[in-house]
C-alpha cells in the first residue's frame, strides 16, 4: 500500500494536516477543512470508509463503503450527513463542511419530495 491510497480514517493523528485520496472517486483532499475542522468524508462524493468505534461494540475494521443517505438538521442549525454502510448497514452521522459538494447535498435534501408516497396536493388546503 502506498501512502497515496491512505484514507482519512486510517490517518494517524500526528499527520492531521496531510492529504488523503478518496477510495471511490479518487479525489485528493486535505484531511482538515479550511476552517480547521477535521473531515469525516470526501468533499466531492461525500463517501467515507466505515471504521466502527470499538467502544460501541464494533470490530473497528469493517472498511465498507459509507454512502450518504440523508441530510439531518440538529438544533444547532448546521447540516449533518447520515451515512449508511453498504456492507454492515451501520448508520453514522457527520457534520458537513463548507466545501462539501453542494449539488450532492441538495440532491439528498430534496430526494424525499421527488417521489412522495402520497399526493402532496392535499397540503395546499391546510
Amino acid at each position: 500500500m502506498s501512502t497515496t491510497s491512505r484514507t482519512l480514517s486510517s490517518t494517524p493523528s500526528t499527520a492531521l494536516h496531510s492529504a488523503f485520496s478518496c477510495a471511490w472517486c479518487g479525489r485528493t483532499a486535505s484531511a482538515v477543512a479550511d476552517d480547521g475542522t477535521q473531515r469525516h468524508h470526501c468533499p466531492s462524493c461525500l463517501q467515507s470508509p466505515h471504521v466502527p468505534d470499538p467502544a460501541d461494540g464494533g470490530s473497528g475494521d469493517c472498511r465498507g463503503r459509507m454512502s450518504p443517505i440523508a441530510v439531518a438538521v440538529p438544533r444547532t442549525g448546521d447540516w449533518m450527513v447520515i451515512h449508511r454502510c453498504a456492507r454492515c448497514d451501520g448508520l453514522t452521522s457527520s457534520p458537513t463542511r463548507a466545501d462539501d459538494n453542494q449539488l450532492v447535498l441538495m440532491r439528498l435534501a430534496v430526494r424525499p419530495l421527488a417521489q412522495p408516497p402520497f399526493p402532496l396536493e392535499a397540503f395546499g388546503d391546510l
Partner: protein
Amino acid sequence: MPRRAKNTRRRARGARRPQRYKDVLHSQGGHRGHAFRCAGCRLEVSVDAPGTTHRNHCPTCLVSLHVDRRVPGDRAADCRARMEALCMSVRPDGEWMIIHRCVSCGELSANRIAGDDNPLALVRLALKPLRDPGIAQRTRLAP
C-alpha cells in the same frame, strides 16, 4: 487470491446486495407486547400496521423507543430511552425511511414508514433541511 479480488470488485460494481432477512419477532413468541404506549404522546399503538411488519414508532408523533439492536423486535438494547425522528431518507426504490436518533446514547436507526403514519408529520420531517433559508441560499447551484 486473484479470484477473491474479482469477487469483491463485482460486489462493489454491481447492484446493491439484497436486504438482510429479518424474522418477524413482533408476533407469537417473540416478545410479549402486542401494543405499546407512545413515549412521546402517550397514544396506545397496536403493532399491526398497514404496509409494514416492523412498526416501531408512533403513527402520530413518530417517536420510537430504543429497545432493539439490529433485528427488529429482538429487545437486545438496554438503553430504553426515547428515540426522536431525525430526518427522512429514501431507498433506491422510492420508499421513505425515518431515521431515528436516541436522545440518550445517540444511536441511529432506520425504519420504513407505515401506511397510517401522519402525513403532515412525515412531510414536515422531509422538509426540515429546506426550512432554513440561510443554508439554501448558500448552495449556489447555478453557475
